């Protein structure tokens, strides 16, 4: 328990100490909100879909959670390269609690990022439909954060250096983001695309998040929660297994 806490704390300290990282991670969501939000706003409205910024903001919040969560997972590689991982791996603590502590830390920070993007969206005119559903929105953000930090950790456990990072960004993270209903409604998509988006875990996370933030969702809350919860559990189990097999 103590081990989990200290690893969690370490992730938070590292994050908040690096000002450039905090600022840098907000640049992309900001850019997306402005360009897409205002760029497509009138077209979206004319098509009879309502206010695009309202629709888009949950997608961008999820995006920032996704990007930072994956990154915090992948960070294990830095620890491998800079040697600190050895210090944790010779400790008389189960590898699973090390993995859990790290992942919780990364997921906490990624969720905070999501909250900051939510606040930024407010500055651009986004409004929640029902403020009392905020805890539910936070739950969806946190589950997505856990899922993708776990995924990042699982991948990083099998990697030796950062050379594969671009590959992961371009062939995993970007497709996850674009093929998820973050930027456009998933109903009315061509069948092939529809299948792809329905296989994407982020689709359910975003649907749940959008439901809790603006009251519009395509699936039921419980279904979204079930899918995301289930996948998170599976990924954490696999991630813990791979992490516990790391040899240096």
């Amino acid at each position, binding site marked *: 328990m103590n081990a989990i806490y200290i690893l969690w704390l370490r992730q938070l300290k590292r994050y908040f100490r690096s000002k450039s990282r905090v600022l840098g991670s907000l640049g992309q969501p900001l850019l997306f909100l402005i360009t897409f939000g205002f760029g497509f706003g009138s077209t979206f409205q004319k098509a009879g879909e309502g206010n695009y910024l309202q629709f888009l903001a949950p997608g961008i919040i999820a995006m920032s959670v996704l990007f930072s969560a994956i990154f915090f997972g992948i960070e294990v590689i830095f620890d491998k390269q*800079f*040697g600190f991982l050895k210090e944790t791996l*010779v400790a008389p603590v*189960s590898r699973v609690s090390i993995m859990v502590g790290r992942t919780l830390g990364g997921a906490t920070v990624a969720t905070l990022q999501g909250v900051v993007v939510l606040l930024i969206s407010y500055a651009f005119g986004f409004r929640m439909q029902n403020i009392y559903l905020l805890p539910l929105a936070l739950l969806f953000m946190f589950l997505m954060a856990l899922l993708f930090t776990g995924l990042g950790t699982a991948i990083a456990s099998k990697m030796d250096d950062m050379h594969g990072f671009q590959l992961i960004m371009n062939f995993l993270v970007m497709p996850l983001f674009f093929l998820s209903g973050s930027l456009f409604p998933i109903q009315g998509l061509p069948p092939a695309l529809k299948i792809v988006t329905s296989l994407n875990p982020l689709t359910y996370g975003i649907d749940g998040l959008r439901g809790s933030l603006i009251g519009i969702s395509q699936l039921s809350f419980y279904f979204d929660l079930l899918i995301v919860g289930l996948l998170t559990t599976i990924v954490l189990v696999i991630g813990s297994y791979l992490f516990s097999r790391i*040899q*240096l």
Partner: protein
Amino acid sequence: MTKSIIEVKNLVKKFSDLTAVDNISFTINSGEIFAFLGPNGAGKTTTIKILTTLLKQTDGEVKVNGFDVLTAKNQVRHSFGIVFQDHSLDDELTAYENMQFHAVLFSVPKEERKERIENLLKFVDLWERKDSLVKTFSGGMKRRLEISRGLLHEPKILFLDEPTLGLDPQTRNHIWKYIEDLSQNKGLTVFFTTHYMDEADRVAQRIAIIDHGKIIAQGTSAELKKLTKKNSLEDAFISLTGDVIRDEEASTLDRLRMHRRGR
């Protein structure tokens, strides 16, 4: 006091087709200071990694403090402290936080943490800098911090993989004095590697020389000198391992190890 605390029997480690450790056996007694010497790429670091549960052996049996490294990992990990050959601190944390992190992971009792950390940091002259981020430290300061961290949970065995690399003679002396003192008065067992033969000659009670994954000689410094009919341990070492600077074969081996180390 001749109870053995580290027992290695027929240890083998293979990386795909390369045999890094080739059937070695040795025993270290409790309270002993033991030097493990060898040229670059001889298998020293690989052996330490197996003894400290970071790497699984291909074959053979290893017991540390009576516990098997494969089946009783946690007990083994409680038994030793280690200073790695390369950097293993978190640069983004302060010296004190690095120590605290270690204390929690090694379940040092809460009420003793502060005092122990203070004593050790004072000993290595880092107490004034306890709240500075480690990334602002020089190489020698980092090394001192790592050594004090390795002793924080009061282990029975201390592994030191080239611990004094890059330290000035004053610091080296200071640290060895402290370690020798711990060994004499508290029965700390020390297993270290070094390229400084004078250091091994002065400090180690027993020495094993490993080359190409095999132990080629074992004994006290005097015994090794006698065996090779040389006057200094350095000459004895060179006469045992040859004076050729490792050529092609050894350097691919080194590259491979460097690569592995980078992990």
